[in-house]
């Protein structure tokens, strides 16, 4: 049925991101603003009502009765289990109870390193973006970090200009030389699980730790994905993703974001 539906690129990102949460009912997830909030709410409606959303402002087990534009206003705290402080929330991944993180990216590379800080050479940056927020604290230790961003050669780069949040191979700044080393060497736990874009889903090879194309959405070609990727992408394992169902779309459009405040459609 899904082929007949008009589905926007943003809606695809939300719903395919939501599907990643299927195996994680009753688990705890650190959820960022924007598409991650929508994705987690879709997942809760459809598959994992026991998923616990934790927000970096210290809202634990947030219910999110109305989709917020801000992580720090009344819509986040309302109805949550306890409103504590940022540190208790963000340290969840390091402590171990929080297994899932959802992050955005201005740049992402083949190892899943994320840059949201600045563009340009590391020793001569051209302009600033926004900074880490809580991304680094989440991405350093979450068992499964999901990266959600639109795919283009500008965002999918061979090596990010600045590592805000470390991926599978990251710079060791604790020693001179900024050597790139496997994240285990840095004693970071977990790591990037997938990059969910408007075109498909990239995962990371167990051995090489490099991104490969896992799924491309119906109507998207592998060529289209390669044209929007700035690094060598292994597409040998790629398969077409299951189409978005009417149920998924209905939940997003009528339950999660009925007013379309995020203009996903």
């Amino acid at each position, binding site marked *: 049925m899904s082929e007949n539906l008009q589905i926007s690129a943003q809606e695809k990102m939300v719903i395919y991101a939501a599907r990643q949460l299927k195996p994680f009912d009753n688990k705890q997830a650190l959820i960022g*603003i*924007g598409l991650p909030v929508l994705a987690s709410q879709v997942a809760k409606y459809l598959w994992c009502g026991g998923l616990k959303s934790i927000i*970096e*402002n*210290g*809202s634990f087990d947030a219910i999110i*009765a*109305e989709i917020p*534009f*801000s*992580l*720090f*206003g*009344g*819509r*986040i*705290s*309302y109805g949550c289990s306890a*409103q*504590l*402080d*940022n*540190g208790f929330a*963000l*340290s969840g991944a*390091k402590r171990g109870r929080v297994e899932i993180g959802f992050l955005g990216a201005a740049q992402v590379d083949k190892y899943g390193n994320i840059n949201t*800080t600045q563009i340009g050479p*590391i*020793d001569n940056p051209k*302009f*600033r*973006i*926004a*900074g*880490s*927020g*809580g*991304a*680094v*604290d989440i991405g*350093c*230790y979450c068992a499964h970090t999901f990266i959600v961003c639109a795919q283009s050669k500008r965002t999918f780069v061979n090596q990010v200009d*600045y*590592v*805000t*949040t*470390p991926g599978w191979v*990251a*710079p*060791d*700044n*604790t020693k001179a030389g*900024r050597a790139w080393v496997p*994240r285990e060497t*840095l*004693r*970071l736990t977990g790591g990037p699980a997938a990059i969910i874009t408007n075109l498909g889903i990239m995962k990371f090879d167990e051995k090489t730790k490099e991104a490969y194309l896992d799924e491309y959405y119906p109507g998207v070609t592998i060529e289209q994905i390669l044209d929007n990727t700035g690094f060598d992408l292994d597409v040998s394992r790629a398969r077409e993703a299951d189409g978005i169902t009417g149920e998924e779309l209905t939940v997003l459009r009528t339950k999660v974001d*009925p*007013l379309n*405040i995020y203009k996903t459609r």
Partner: protein
Amino acid sequence: MEANKMVSLKDAVSVIQDGDIVFFGGIVDGRRPVAAMRELARQQKKNLITLSFLSVEDFLVGAGCIKGIRGCYTHLGIFGKVPCLHRALAKNELVVDEFGHIDCQLQLMAPALGLPYVASPYCIGSDIINPNYDFSEKLRALAREPERIGAQKYIFTENPFSPEHETVVLVPALRPNVAIIHAGKIGHEGTVRIEGTQGLDIYAAFAADRVIVTAEEIVPESYLRRDPNRNNIPTTQVDMIVHVPWGAHPTALPGYYDMDMEALFIYQKAARTEEDFAKWSDEWIYSLSDNNAYLEKIGAAKMMQLKAVEPYGFKPRTSVEQLG
């Protein structure tokens, strides 16, 4: 006898000195002490260093008040870039010293608990701890009391308790000169009750030398003291109390009002050019002599439109039947 802590916004802000490290409460677009920020602009404070997040206080960069920030985020949430900051960076007139989010809390938690520094496992593998991006010296050059800022942003060492001697990152304590916090309710002796996101405010209130609280409502102490477990900052940490209704506008104040998205969009657009930013500043800061003038400027109808609804603490977009 109890000392009277109630002062005018002007008098409260006047204690801040050029080169002070100032903590602003709330986060990004929630519960920020924006009225106090406007007064800082009117009093033309210089060389201020702020902490953690830089969002609506962008106009203080444009006004030449903020010259340094140690924090983890400089952006206006969904509204986009902070234009004055980016202009100041391009002119090399601003120091942004990057930090992790938990580390932002730890650098305040340390002095709040009397600790010299904290051993953190966060930011390893990130360029946040890249020594080339340690701008402590630049921040110290701005500060009135440079010794408040560690000579290094981070120091790497080994965990001496662990047989594996893994690397840990030491984060120095940073005591703000002043913390300015906006809250819904404050008792007349200084007991503070925060609704929603508490952010780093409690740590800052214990870490800073002076604490100014602006509040929507000044209520009897006895009312708040019926439930001390619900209060966030005790009288003993509050030095000045200022009554400032809508003092967080245009950011959200849970339990009181939503963020004024229109006002934030207008700011973000206007701030993109120096000319428009100057006009915006005149219209929203310098031409308004006090908070009453600001309230009239917002307008009663807009205020009613933003006013939060019980029990949500925000203004529902849909009918309450639908929201449940």
